């Protein structure tokens, strides 16, 4: 920065000064403001330009305010000869560059409105484009942002001009001018590199950097060498250095689309990162704008904040319009910036909330897991060994209500269901063999003369069909699935064991629940004993008379517990058979998600059949408000498959516990037996 008066002061830097001077103009049309540090290095000689000159240049060149932005595209050659002459010279820059620059300058203006930082330009088109890069930044096509211009061979032999806005912005530390910093996600240290950064040393971030040089051959190495020697931070930044020495090449680069939104811009390389960078840059800029003296600290702050930065922003709102549209006014620019701030703040808040929620959920999950493992050991080590002794104790019953840990569920179910029927593994084998024989003979005789369409005969065929459509989402009972054969065997053996009951649709999911939790023989024993319970037997046989008893009893408790819904159901024609039939027969495996159904089973095995009806009342209570607004068909549809919600199990069970199955001090069994007669 100290080199302004250096005799070797390059034309480029003077141009840069000049441009800076123009930037304070309030008009949006004015060329962009930016901090560019331009250094020209030619054959070992380094020239540094600093922003500090800005006020001076303003004074020196007051009339530059009038200059149209387009004119800043002077040729470096001119600048080299006359520091100020370049202002009005545009001849060496192609039209494409000019227009590009125009738009980019607008962009910059809009973005850094509040910054009165003078524009810097490394070289003719390049400086402005570099400025534009601040906004376009990662969005823009890298090739576009690398502008080249022809340097006069006489003055600028082998010059590589690199401008890095970022570095420049950090240079601004000493200036009061806030800068418009384009902070990339760099550690604070990098935000404020030493003021004496040479062109080559400046980290060449591909997009914020433009470099121009006369010779293509040299620059890369040159930059890298210098960069290595300058500072480590610089070397850490990846750099793309491009030199175009010939006009041809330049024109190629000029033909690159000028506006990333509307032009043909190649796809972004890494959108997330880019969005993040933009956000960070914006953040940093804001911070700097507020407190330039503490720029460094601010930079650190913004760096620290990065963790919770919303990553979704692309800051497009801060972009300027395409060149063929009128530029934004200052107010609009300001408004957009404010809007953007609001959006960012909103996004941040949301992400913070989300993060907190995740954290809470994680904790909750951990807590639950811990509890489950505790409960598991209690069930395994204390309760199950002394089952008969403990099963009725208050403590066990309370623990039971909470739901059984999955690892002991099968064992608890098994002992809770018991084996009144004294079924043995041998017996199961016998019926299984019989079922297989039957299956084979059925396959032979099935084709014609189905004159005996008796349910019993068709059972085996029906089982085959139903097994493969049991819990289809689990994909374990379908043909070829691990439990397909087991489920089929159990159901087949059961129809041979109890031809008087046979197979009924709905049994398959009941047996499947057992298969999921216990071994094959245990599942068969539990299944047979379960179906042998009076309520299950009634529903599996579809014993209409007995079912009416159950429905009638249920209605008594329903009317008591939920009188409004009861009346609504009655006036809509919703009778218990329309939903209870399904619920009881499938033991809630159809209407409820599997995990919730498991918990209903848990307590069903604790409390017996009345719990099935109590669970029904709990469901109706939970959805009472919804159901009151529905008609018959909608109610029936709603109840046949209840919505799967978060925390459904806990919610449902809190409703169930608030619904004791009591009617005028009469218990379930009392009301049921009064229906018997």
């Amino acid at each position, binding site marked *: 920065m100290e080199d302004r008066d250096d005799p070797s002061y390059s034309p480029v830097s003077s141009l840069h000064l000049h441009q800076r001077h123009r930037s304070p103009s309030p008009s949006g049309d004015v060329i962009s403001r930016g901090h560019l540090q331009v250094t020209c290095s030619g054959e070992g000689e380094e020239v540094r330009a600093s922003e500090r000159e800005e006020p001076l240049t303003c004074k020196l060149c007051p009339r530059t305010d009038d200059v149209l932005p387009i004119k800043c595209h002077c040729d470096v050659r001119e600048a080299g000869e006359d520091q100020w002459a370049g202002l009005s010279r545009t001849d060496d820059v192609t039209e494409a560059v000019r227009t590009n620059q125009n738009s980019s300058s607008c962009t910059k203006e809009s973005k850094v409105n509040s910054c009165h930082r003078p524009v810097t330009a490394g070289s003719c088109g390049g400086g402005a484009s570099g400025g534009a890069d601040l906004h376009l930044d990662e969005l823009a096509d890298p090739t576009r942002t690398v502008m080249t211009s022809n340097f006069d061979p006489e003055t600028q032999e082998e010059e590589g001009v690199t401008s890095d806005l970022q570095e420049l912005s950090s240079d601004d530390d000493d200036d009061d001018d806030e800068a418009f910093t384009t902070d990339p996600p760099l550690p604070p240290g990098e935000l404020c590199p030493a003021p004496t950064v040479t062109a080559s040393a400046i980290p060449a971030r591909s997009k914020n950097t433009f470099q121009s040089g006369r010779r293509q051959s040299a620059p890369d190495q040159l930059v890298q060498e210098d960069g290595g020697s300058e500072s480590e931070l610089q070397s850490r930044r990846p750099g793309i250095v491009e030199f175009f020495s010939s006009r041809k090449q330049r024109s190629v680069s000029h033909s690159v689309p000028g506006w990333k939104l509307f032009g043909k811009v190649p796809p972004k390389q890494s959108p997330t990162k880019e969005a993040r960078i933009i956000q960070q840059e914006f953040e940093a800029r804001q911070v700097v704008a507020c407190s330039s003296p503490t720029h460094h600290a601010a930079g650190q702050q913004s760096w620290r904040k990065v963790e919770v930065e919303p990553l979704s922003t692309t800051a497009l709102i801060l972009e300027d319009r395409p060149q063929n549209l009128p530029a934004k006014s200052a107010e609009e620019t300001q408004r957009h910036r404010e809007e953007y701030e609001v959006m960012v703040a909103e996004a941040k808040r949301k992400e913070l909330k989300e993060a907190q929620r995740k954290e809470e959920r994680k904790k909750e999950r951990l807590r639950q897991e811990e509890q489950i493992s505790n409960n598991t050991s209690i069930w395994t080590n204390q309760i199950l060994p002394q089952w008969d002794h403990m099963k009725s104790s208050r403590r066990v019953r309370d623990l039971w209500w909470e739901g059984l840990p999955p690892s002991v569920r099968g064992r608890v179910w098994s002992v809770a269901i018991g084996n009144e029927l004294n079924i043995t593994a041998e017996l199961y084998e016998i019926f299984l063999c019989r079922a297989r024989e039957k299956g084979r003979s059925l396959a032979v005789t099935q084709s014609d003369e189905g004159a005996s369409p008796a*349910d019993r005969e*068709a059972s085996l065929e029906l089982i085959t069909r139903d097994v493969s459509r049991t819990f289809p989402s689990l994909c374990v009972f379908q043909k070829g699935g691990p439990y397909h054969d087991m489920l089929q065997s159990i159901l087949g053996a059961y129809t041979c064991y109890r031809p008087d009951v046979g197979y009924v*649709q709905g049994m398959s999911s009941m047996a499947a629940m057992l298969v999921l939790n216990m071994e094959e023989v245990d599942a068969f024993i539990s299944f047979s004993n379960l179906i042998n319970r009076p309520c299950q037997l009634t529903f599996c046989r579809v014993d*209409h008379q007995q079912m009416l008893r159950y429905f009638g009893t249920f209605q008594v408790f329903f009317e008591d517990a939920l009188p409004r819904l009861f009346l609504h159901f009655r006036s809509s024609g919703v009778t218990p058979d329309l939903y209870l*039939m*399904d619920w009881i027969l499938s033991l809630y495996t*159809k209407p409820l998600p599997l995990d919730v159904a498991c918990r209903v089973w848990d307590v069903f095995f604790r409390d017996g059949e009345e719990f099935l009806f109590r669970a029904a009342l709990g469901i109706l209570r939970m959805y009472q408000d919804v159901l009151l607004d529905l008609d018959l068909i909608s109610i*029936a*549809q709603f109840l046949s498959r209840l919505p799967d919600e978060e925390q459904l199990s806990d919610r449902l069970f809190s409703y169930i516990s608030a619904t004791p199955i009591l009617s005028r001090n009469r218990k379930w069994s009392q009301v049921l037996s009064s229906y018997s007669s």
Partner: protein
Amino acid sequence: METIWLYQFRLIVIGDSTVGKSCLIRRFTEGRFAQVSDPTVGVDFFSRLVEIEPGKRIKLQIWDTAGQERFRSITRAYYRNSVGGLLLFDITNRRSFQNVHNWLEEAQSHVQPHSIVFLLVGHKCDLEAQRQVTQQEAEKLAGAFGMRYVETSARDAINVEKAFVDLTRDIFELVRNGDIKIQDGWEGVKSGFVPNTVHSSEEVTKGSRQCFC
């Protein structure tokens, strides 16, 4: 004011288990074919609006019954309040065709004093290679019972719309001609309503007649 629907018809769908009742209804009401569907336990419910003529919409309330024989003790209670029915058999399953008699008897003995307009549906007609029931014999049977016959496929969406719409039109004609009357305490046919004004069946019928002329 526009009536949301002119009438609501309750239809019942019966037939042996696994002939594809639920799949047919799902194709009609949801427009998709489910490879796997739960076996129906008791009864399932569906509904859809059908526009039989421009501006004349009928709401169909479809009761999908379990096919397994033991559920008949439950489902027989649902005949009484139905105005129409689809009686399905599987053209690849002769037994399901032979059971059509039983189903009809079952229905007729439980629908009194009302009657049901039935449509005989030969389902799974995409499985032509496995056909066990010819179209001729099915049509003959349908004729003997005074029913229409249609062959459908839920998988390939063949005649699904036609089956339901034809049946709906037939019932609509009977309602318009007064052969089927709306009655209190009978759910088979319900008249639609214009908000704020509950039409009697006669008014609605007259209104629709005027529109026809």
